[in-house]
């Protein structure tokens, strides 16, 4: 017993290393498996507040750019409004489709922390459960393009798993012929302005510059513009092809995001859960 104690004491550096390294690895594995179930991250009150303080200064520097994007958006909305009033047909049919009118509800949130340099990037925003943010809500950019999904929420903050993450997979379609595919980022490409669309069948004719929009599955409303195809010849060797997409939104200057509240999400999920092969 005494010899054992002397032995352990002599090589204590190694034994301590094994103990602490195991704790670290265990946390790592747990976090990878259960999607940020550990409480110490940037939804935490201390960390979140620190980031928010700093962001006040940072946002000031970006004011000009934010103004530009807001006025561009205003112009877009005003155009839509003007066009909506100028109906030139005499007979108008009124459709009371209350279900579809009320399905989606958007609200804005400020980005208080954003990362683009990592393999798996997350964004922290200043809205939480108190403002109605729920896990798995879809998030879009204020101008054009998709951001990701809500991964974790606390009362005042939430974390978004952005598109720039190996876990994120967004269902998209080619705008011109509605071919389904999935939008992913990564696979030896870590340019934040490029992503890939996978699982497009080989027989579909695709041209450079074709627009990619969301398909309507998985929380995003149908038809949100994601990006333009920038490269078509990314071969995978099976019956599907991979397309490279130039994203419309710039993750590096993100200051505001829109969260999408889907009123029918639960109903859709419930229905789809009954099918054994869907997710």
């Amino acid at each position: 017993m005494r010899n054992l104690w002397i032995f352990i004491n002599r090589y204590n550096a190694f034994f301590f290393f094994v103990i602490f390294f195991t704790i670290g690895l265990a946390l790592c594995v747990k976090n990878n498996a259960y999607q940020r179930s550990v409480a110490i991250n940037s939804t935490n009150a201390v960390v979140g507040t620190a980031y928010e303080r700093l962001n006040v200064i940072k946002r000031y520097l970006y004011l000009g750019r934010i103004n530009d994007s807001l006025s561009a958006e205003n112009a877009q909305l005003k155009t839509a409004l003007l066009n909506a009033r100028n109906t030139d047909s005499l007979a108008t049919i009124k459709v009371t489709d209350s279900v579809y009118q009320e399905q989606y509800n958007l609200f804005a949130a400020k980005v208080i922390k954003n990362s683009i340099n990592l393999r798996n990037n997350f964004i922290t925003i200043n809205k939480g459960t108190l403002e109605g943010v729920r896990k798995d809500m879809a998030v879009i950019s204020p101008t054009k393009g998709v951001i990701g999904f809500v991964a974790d929420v606390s009362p005042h903050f939430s974390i978004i798993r952005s598109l720039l993450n190996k876990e994120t997979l967004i269902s998209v379609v080619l705008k011109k012929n509605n071919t389904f595919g999935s939008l992913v980022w990564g696979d030896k490409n870590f340019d934040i302005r490029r992503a890939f669309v996978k699982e497009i069948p080989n027989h579909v004719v695709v041209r450079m510059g074709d627009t990619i929009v969301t398909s309507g599955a998985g929380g995003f409303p149908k038809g949100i513009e994601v990006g333009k195809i920038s490269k078509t010849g990314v071969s995978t060797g099976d019956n599907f092809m991979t397309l490279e997409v130039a994203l419309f939104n710039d993750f590096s200057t993100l200051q505001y995001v829109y969260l999408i509240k889907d009123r029918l999400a639960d109903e859709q999920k419930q229905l789809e859960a009954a099918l054994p092969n869907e997710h």
Partner: protein
Amino acid sequence: MNTKLIFINIARWLLLLFVQIFLLRNIGFYNLSTPFVYALFILILPFNLPNLALYLLAFFTGLTMDAFYDTMGVHISACVLMAFSRIIFISISLNRDSIDEPEPSLGNMGFKWFGLYALVCIFMHHLAVFFLEAFKLNEFSYTLGRVLISTIFTFFVVLLVEFTFHNRKSA
């Protein structure tokens, strides 16, 4: 002397972590190279620190980094691995009894020893960070590239910091 050393280290911890989290987190070359200069704190902790205290400090530093980077476990493992490499490197390269400097900084130890020491420890740290972050091996060459380029980046910033603040004795 001892209390002074403790205060210096606390101040160094706060400063390095602050710079790392609020400044260096936003710096990177095309997603290839990200500096983790906060590792300097573990590099130049005093020689006479017990191993357990060294591991606890490394663990706590890693935990703080993980909280701000949202990468639970990655930096903890990396810092602990780095503390281990530090102990091994020092025990191989130096004679325990002949150490008369308080801490292994550039000014105390000279460029040749400190350069190799920093390079080895930073490489081990980055190896753990990038591979645990990727968490799979099918991007192996890419991840290894990130490790190497980031090691060089961090190494140069560490040398820069050391030349700026610790040049009293060697001059």
